[in-house]
């Protein structure tokens, strides 16, 4: 078999900036967490390497900023009301902009009071439609999974933790949902929207999320175990239904 090169790291290995990952010519999607110099690939952040099928990616373990990706659905908070739209904090290095015409599905007349639809401090779920080197991210409200958040509770974790929660190993996310019965939406920019049947479950899941945030476990399975024990201690084993396996 003709390999594109040599990979020097193992799956789930913790890497630091400057660690040599591979040498050769791999077809991997561009990522800010890997950089290439001549034919060598290096990690650029502290993270965990995912090695499978002869390719590799780095998932960051640290960092509180979200790197906007076109196509992502994110949850942000409205910061400012502009003439024809809103400035939204999506926890990226740049503020995002949501055109009012996108939310309302019609052009805006001058002088309209946009606060009726979305005010400073409101939460909005939207898609990242445009983002490149020349412009701040532009959002779009399109589809039933987007729009103003009107109920439930919103908490935040670091985007790096969020991407691990919704990464290929869903055991942790499934544990949270199945053990508490809460409806949970985790967004790649680290925002979490939850709707829980009662306040006891909400407290339990909030505590579990705090635990996930501060714990430094690099293996999802160990973290999942810790979270399982935590929720069980909070709610008793009675509320835990059959938990889905990874």
């Amino acid at each position, binding site marked *: 078999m003709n390999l594109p090169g040599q990979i020097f790291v193992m799956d789930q290995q913790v890497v630091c*900036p*400057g660690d040599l990952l591979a040498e050769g010519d791999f077809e991997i999607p561009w990522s800010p967490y890997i950089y290439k110099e001549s034919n060598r690939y290096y990690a*650029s952040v*502290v993270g965990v390497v995912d090695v499978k099928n002869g390719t590799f990616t780095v998932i960051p*373990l640290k*960092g509180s*900023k979200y790197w906007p990706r076109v196509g992502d659905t994110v949850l942000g908070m409205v910061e400012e009301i502009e003439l024809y739209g809103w400035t939204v904090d999506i926890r990226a*290095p740049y503020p995002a902009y949501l055109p009012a015409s996108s939310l309302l599905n019609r052009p805006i007349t001058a002088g309209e009071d946009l606060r009726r639809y979305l005010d400073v401090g409101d939460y909005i779920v939207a898609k990242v439609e445009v983002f490149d080197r020349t412009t701040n991210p532009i959002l779009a409200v399109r589809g039933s999974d987007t729009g103003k958040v009107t109920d439930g509770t919103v908490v935040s974790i670091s985007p790096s933790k969020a991407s691990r929660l919704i990464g290929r190993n869903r055991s942790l996310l499934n544990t949270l949902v199945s053990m508490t019965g809460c409806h949970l939406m985790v967004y790649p920019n680290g925002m979490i929207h939850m709707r829980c049947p009662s306040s006891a479950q909400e407290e339990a899941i909030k505590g579990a999320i705090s635990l996930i945030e501060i714990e430094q*476990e690099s293996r999802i399975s160990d973290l999942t175990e810790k979270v399982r024990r935590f929720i069980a201690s909070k709610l008793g084993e009675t509320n835990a239904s059959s938990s889905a396996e990874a």
Partner: protein
Amino acid sequence: MLAAQQRPRLIDERGLRTDGRRPDELRPIRIELGVLKNADGSAIFEMGNTKVIAAVYGPKEMHPRHMALPDRTVLRVRYHMTPFSTDERKNPAPSRREIELSKVIREALESAILTELFPRATIDVFMEVLQADAGTRLVSLMAASMALADAGIPMRDLIAGVAVGKADGVLVLDLNEAEDMWGEADMPIAMMPSLNKVVLFQLNGTMTPEELRQALELAKKGIAEIYQLEKKAIKEKFVEVS
């Protein structure tokens, strides 16, 4: 010269230095990451009695907008010494030395941070020397490097550096205060070790060209040691079950 009377002997008859170290020995190093809540990344770096805290904010949008660069991040870097960090109180107003070192440290960070990833943004790096016992610019630079890693800001490599000096004619690694004050040369050098690239390099004092080459070799060894300690400090927080 009156100064000669106060000058201590820097290398004793056993070849040991004023603090008992061999010429090629580093001072004890302590590294702690994530020490501040508000900063996006932070670290405390200690080398012997030199202790520096560094904090990083960003990347974030740059204000005022006209100072932003269209194709990369603007770094705002401040090296500063607390008034109680030295034997005699240091005036808190920025000195010419602090201004030069802020520039030298910023230039070192420019080569490491992937600044082209965040155009029109800024990253703030603040370093405060809490205890000064020689090597403050290098310890500050390393503290900043650790803080940047803590903040998850993409970089080419961690930065490791050390000061090589000449004490009583002997090349010594990781100068202490006495050697810095009374020695014949002080050569701070910092690198991105994985890429074998030098990001900070200065010399004050005198050296022959031959001594310079030997000093660079000695520095390379010291830097390799420090680099391993830096990686260990970062990785050991993530419990790995083998």
